[in-house]
């Protein structure tokens, strides 16, 4: 099943939630919609599910016009951030719901429903909870039940809205791995929304980075991390050092001082220079494009993080290997191994 949206626009009052979004998801993909809150990612997901309607644009599921159908006819599995389990039903009845409300002509008989629910509860490894009520489950268990419930109707596509957003860090990490292997197993075309870049990069085949109702970049996790298409993407994904610079006559200047960095093909004017923290290499004074004084150093697992005041007054944080000798008060040279410059 493929999903395609074309030129989708949606406003809430004066707020533009979606501002002309185009996206194509191939069959069997697991795509992450990544962006800060208010970027329109949840609105996009809800429109694909039929829980919201766009002001303009098209939604095609498997090539058919989905906007001609209501949420009920679209056959879409939807998993909510806050689970939305039916609180007055047992886990078993929650999962069975989608099977029980089918029209009489296609509805399975009771034995078949029971078998299917059992199968799904086995799939999410929670068959031992079938007689409990949602309020008796932990957050992680609830979300797995919500997923089993969505899968019960054999959805054409699966949509997950911040599925792990309400869970604590440890459970999130477990469920991430679990979701990826589950997707591998059932291979249903899926879109999930998240504001957590780590989650998006770890789980998805493809990442769609959104900001202010627009798509900033679509690419593999490696693409969006290694070659961000815009200043926003560079700043949002991975920890970045951001410096305001000017490009003038083929020279990059930081606070008036020219930097020994190549400026080929850059448009002149105010720009921003982005460097990943671990791409700033430490050398002796005068050795790199920048020079600065180490303010203090802290150890973070495999790296040490140093706060460095650059000679033009701006303070940055860099990550250096632990074997590099760094002490507060040292004057060091810094050379960006890789960097990107975006106009604006």
């Amino acid at each position: 099943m493929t999903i395609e949206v074309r030129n989708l626009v949606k406003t809430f009052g004066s707020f533009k939630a979606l501002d002309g979004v185009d996206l194509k998801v191939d069959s069997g993909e697991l795509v992450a919609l990544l962006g800060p809150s208010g970027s329109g990612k949840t609105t996009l997901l809800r429109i694909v599910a039929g829980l919201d309607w766009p002001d303009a644009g098209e939604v095609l599921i498997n090539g058919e016009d989905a906007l001609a159908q209501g949420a009920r006819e679209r056959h879409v599995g939807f998993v909510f951030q806050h689970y939305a389990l039916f609180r007055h039903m047992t886990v078993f009845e929650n999962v069975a719901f989608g099977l029980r409300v089918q029209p009489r002509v296609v509805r399975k008989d009771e034995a078949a429903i029971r078998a299917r629910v059992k199968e799904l509860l086995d799939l999410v490894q929670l068959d031992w909870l079938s007689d409990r009520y949602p309020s008796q489950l932990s957050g992680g268990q609830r979300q797995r039940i919500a997923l089993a419930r969505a899968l019960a109707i054999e959805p054409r596509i699966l949509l997950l809205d911040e599925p792990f957003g309400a869970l604590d860090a440890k459970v999130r990490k477990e469920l991430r791995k679990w979701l990826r292997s589950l997707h591998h197993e059932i291979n249903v075309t899926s879109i999930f929304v998240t504001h957590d870049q780590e989650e998006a990069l770890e789980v998805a085949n493809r990442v769609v980075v959104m900001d202010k109702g627009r798509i900033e970049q679509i690419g593999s996790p490696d693409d969006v991390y290694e070659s961000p298409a815009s200043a926003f993407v560079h700043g949002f994904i991975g920890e970045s050092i951001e410096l305001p610079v000017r490009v003038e006559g083929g020279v990059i200047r930081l606070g008036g001082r020219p930097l020994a960095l190549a400026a080929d093909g850059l448009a002149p004017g105010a720009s921003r220079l982005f460097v990943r923290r671990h791409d700033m290499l430490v050398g002796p004074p005068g050795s790199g494009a920048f020079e600065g004084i180490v303010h203090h150093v802290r150890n973070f697992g495999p790296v040490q993080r140093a706060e460095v005041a650059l000679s033009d007054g701006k303070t940055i944080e860099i990550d250096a290997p632990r074997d590099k000798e760094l002490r507060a008060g040292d004057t060091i040279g810094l050379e960006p191994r890789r960097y990107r410059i975006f106009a604006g």
Partner: protein
Amino acid sequence: MAMQIADSVSLSVSDAKARAAAARDNLRTEPRAVRIVIIALAVTFLTVFVVLPLVVVFAHAFSKGILAYLAALAEPEALAAIRLTLLVAAISVGLNLVFGLVAAWAIAKFDFPGKTFLITLIDLPFSVSPVISGLVFVLLFGAQGYFGGWLRDHDIQILFAVPGIALATTFVTFPFVARALIPLMQEQGTQEEEAAISLGASGLQTFFRVTLPNIKWGVLYGVLLCNARAMGEFGAVSVVSGHIRGETNTMPLLVEILYNEYHFVAAFAIASLLAMLALITLIAKTVLERHLDEGYAGDH
């Protein structure tokens, strides 16, 4: 030896706990004398204003013995009043159940212009004197009222008959069901309904399988209070009833008439039925409130 140490440790722990508890109590509560005075005031007030009147009702009702009590209730007029009261309560509770559900649904699950105004409007019957509520219907349906001529031409009797009494009662008791449901439904949100629809449920299936089970205790709570008020309503009904004996007298109206005619035992016998309704309502309300809290707590 080890035992002894363990003992003394646990002793000192419980000591510390007791001291901490005592310290907390001192911080939290007033001096003993103040506490006694406050409690005594509350008990006296409740006794004089609530318990005594209730006792008096039953004492007067049974003052001539149980046979006189039963005889008073078996009077045709009394039976007619009880029947009418039950009928009117059934009609107005039924109507308000539907209205209340619809209004609460609209307010809690949708956004539309004029929503705040609608919420205010729902509370109107609470803020208007019941006599005025009754008078409104006289102005609408009375001989001199807006629809009076038309009704007379078509030989339809609303005032001084069951329809008028039911209308006035429905108006006065309108807020109960809606008021019980609006906060509950707002708290529960629309996610479960959205989940149901995306799982393929129709609108009706969603309502009966998801929405209604979630609010059933709230519905019962609203119905209970609505019913108690409907049976006890005096002012509005008094204006539209016409006080036709054996026909348009509800129980509260009959109590007044009997009392004014010095039939004290009969008056208090009917009153005792209303008092019992109140007591049962109170108990049921306590039970329902416990269930309602669970609905609010939800699973989120």
